[in-house]
Every structure is written in structure tokens, then in C-alpha cells.
């Protein structure tokens, strides 16, 4: 009776604590890396659009670097190699930093496109009122850019949420990691991996659809 979709739901219920704990870990990691990633992404986007050449080159280098290497490698790098340089961060901190700086590269490109989509006239109007460059960015350009790009930023965050499952490979009990533990403790690989897939799908698919609709709506309003 407790079997449905080929999954033993009694097993899930029995292990709900560890699974929920894992889910909470995944969500927290996603939310905190998103927050820091978007702030870093804003700074990088401003640097990429800056008239100061070294700043622009640095930001371009940063973005191109992180968009060209696999995320797993960055996770390994921070987790296994940093201790050799004297930074002992532990798994939780090291994956948080990894995701924040890795995702910043992707957020940066979205925010940059957002800034560039604001008309030059808005910048002119802000400057004509006496706002400095920094003030025009802070009060006029960035708020509009972020608002217009919100659906894309959140879509990127859905991808980030899926990517956080990679932390399982360094032994963290995120949602995926919790499934792995339950699976091996109960010899229920097939069941638990099906359940995990189902759970990720049920969270991510509706969210993506919703965001797609929102993006279209915002494009229409503009």
C-alpha cells in the first residue's frame, strides 16, 4: 500500500528527518550563495562596464575563467587544495565560498545585460540632476536592471539549486547526500535515486515554468 511510483514511501517517512535536514542544507546553501553571488555579480558587472581598463580586464578574466572550468573542479580546488596554502575552511564554508564566487560569474553576465538594456537617456537624466556616477548606478540604473532581470536571476538560481547537489561528492549531507545515505543504509539505491530525481524535478520544473512566464510578462510591461 505504501508503494507508489515504484517508491517505498514508508522508507521515506521513516527517514524524513535526515531528508528534510538535507533539503534544508541545500536550500540554505542556495540562498546564501545566491545573495553573495548577486552582490559580487553586481560589482563584477560594474567593473566589466567600467571605463577603467585594468578593472574591466580583471572582471572579464574572472567571468571567462569561471565560465570555462567545471564546477566540480572548483569545489575540489577549494576543498582539497586551499588547506595546503594554510586556509582550513572545512567543507561547509568552502562550498559556500565556491558557489558564491562561481555563480557570481553567471549572475554578472545577466546583470550586465540588464544594465545595458537601460536606455542612455536614463543615465543622462540622472546625471543632469547632479547625481554622481555611483549614485546614478545605485539609485537609478541597478534597481531597474535588477528588476528587469529578476526572472533570469532566479532561473539561474534554480540551476544553482541543482548544482548544489555536487557537494555530495565531498561527503556533505545536502538533500542529495541525505538520499545517498538513506539509499546505502537500506540497500535501496534504485528507490532513493528515483525519489531524489522526482523531488528535484518537482521543485525545479514548476519554478522554471513560472519564471519563464514572469520574464515574458515583464518584457511586455516594458
Amino acid at each position, binding site marked *: 500500500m505504501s508503494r507508489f511510483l515504484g517508491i517505498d514511501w514508508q522508507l521515506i517517512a521513516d527517514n524524513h528527518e535526515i531528508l528534510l535536514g538535507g533539503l534544508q542544507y541545500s536550500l540554505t546553501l542556495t540562498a546564501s550563495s545566491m545573495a553573495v553571488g548577486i552582490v559580487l555579480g553586481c560589482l563584477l558587472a560594474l567593473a566589466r562596464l567600467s571605463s577603467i581598463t585594468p578593472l574591466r580586464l580583471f572582471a572579464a578574466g574572472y567571468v571567462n575563467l569561471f565560465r570555462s572550468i567545471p564546477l566540480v573542479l572548483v569545489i575540489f580546488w577549494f576543498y582539497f587544495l586551499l588547506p595546503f596554502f594554510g586556509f582550513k575552511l572545512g567543507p561547509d564554508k568552502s562550498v559556500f565560498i565556491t558557489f558564491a564566487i562561481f555563480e557570481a560569474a553567471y549572475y554578472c553576465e545577466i546583470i550586465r545585460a540588464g544594465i545595458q538594456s537601460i536606455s542612455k537617456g*536614463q543615465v*543622462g*537624466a*540622472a546625471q*543632469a540632476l*547632479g*547625481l*554622481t556616477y555611483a549614485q546614478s548606478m545605485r539609485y537609478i540604473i541597478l*534597481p*531597474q536592471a535588477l528588476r528587469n532581470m529578476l526572472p533570469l536571476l532566479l532561473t539561474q538560481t534554480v540551476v544553482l539549486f541543482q548544482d548544489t547537489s555536487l557537494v555530495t561528492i565531498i561527503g556533505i549531507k545536502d538533500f542529495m547526500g541525505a538520499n545517498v545515505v538513506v539509499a546505502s543504509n537500506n540497500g535501496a539505491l534504485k528507490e532513493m535515486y528515483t525519489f531524489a530525481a522526482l523531488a528535484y524535478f518537482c521543485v525545479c520544473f514548476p519554478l522554471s515554468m513560472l519564471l519563464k512566464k514572469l520574464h515574458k510578462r515583464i518584457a511586455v510591461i516594458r
Partner: protein
Amino acid sequence: MIEINKVSKWYGDFQVLTDCSTSVAKGEVVVVCGPSGSGKSTLIKCVNGLEPFQSGSISVEGTSVGDAKTDLPKLRAKVGMVFQNFELFPHLSITENLCLAQEKVLGRSHAEAMEKGLKLLDRVGLKAQAAKFPGQLSGGQQQRVAIARALAMDPIAMLFDEPTSALDPEMVNEVLDVMVQLAKEGMTMMCVTHEMGFARKVANRVIFMDRGAIVEDAAKDDFFGQPRSERAQTFLSKILHH
């Protein structure tokens, strides 16, 4: 108050402004007209340093605009500007549009800024719209808010770049009325516009530009009576017969 002296500007090889010289005295209203692409917007944007220029000089109340040492934001805060496309900030409410620069640039308290903003909003006849967002207003209303926003900074002069040319015909007058009122109160104004009725009513001088140069710079009555240049005559007869 505004002195423009032999200003030239290039976009790459293309010369947009050629040796433009003129001045606007305190309390004077100067209308700038000319065919599309003649450099009117570029010239007026040079006055508050929104566009850089390569040679010549512009000074506003003695402050040189082209000087690298000049604090441009500070200078711009003293010169109001109104744009063809209004350029209200769409993510801010009308009152926020009016208050932002007063608070961030002039350092006024929110209460002070609000009081000033609402007074000006009332003056342009839009007090009832204070809580709305720009997108909820008509073009004419938006432009009046834009004028109020510029006035809130207590500018020493106002620059207008075709303030009515993006408006539906029935909204042109509500904006012109505000501008006429302003002119009558003695505001120093430099207006790019093709509204010759406005020029006739309040302008002291009319400047005619063609291909980046100031071709004619004459007292209003001389300009409408008998422009010296043939190009100004042709241009006038074209827009007056429309």
C-alpha cells in the same frame, strides 16, 4: 550666464559642432531651432557637460564646463534639464522622482524635499498624481513632472531639448503653458524647440543651427521679421506652413 565660445565637437571623423558661439544672459529665453541632425541636442548637452567637446569653451556662471577640474555633478545640479522623452525614473513614484536628487545631491531632509516637491507638483497642476508611477501618467503629465523635478533643484537656468516633440498634439499646450509661465517669472532658459508660437510669445532671441553651425543668432523680432540667411528662411517657411 551661459557663455559658449567657439565650441567644436567631433564623433570620430564626423564634425557635429563647428565653432559654435553664443551666450544666454540672466533671465533671457533663447530658442534654438534647425533641421533634424543639425546638432541642437548635442550643443545643449554640452552646456551641462552631458556631452564632452574637443575644442572651444563653455562657462556657466563663470564655471568652465570643459575643465577637467570642474565638479560636473555640482554644476549639473544647478542647471535643470528637460528631455524629449521625459526620462522620469520608471521604478520610482512621482514623489520619489521629485525627492531623490534633492536628498542625495542637495542633502535636503526628506520632509523638506517632500514639501518642495509637492509645491512644484501643485504648480504644474499634478498634485493629485503624487503617489502614482510615471507609467500611469500621460506623456504631457510626465513631461510636467519632469519640469517640476528639474525645478525642485532650484536651478539657475533651465535647458529644454525638444520637450514637446514626443507628445500627442493635444498635450503640447499643457507643457508649453508651464514653460511660458516659467519664462515670465524670469527663469533663464535655453530651449531647443520647433514651437514657433512659444518662441514668438516668450523668446528674447532665436538661434538657428544648420549642419553643426550657428547660422543665425538674432533678436526674436529680427528673426521672425526677416532672417538674414536663406537657409533659415526656407526652414521657417517650412515649419510655419505646417
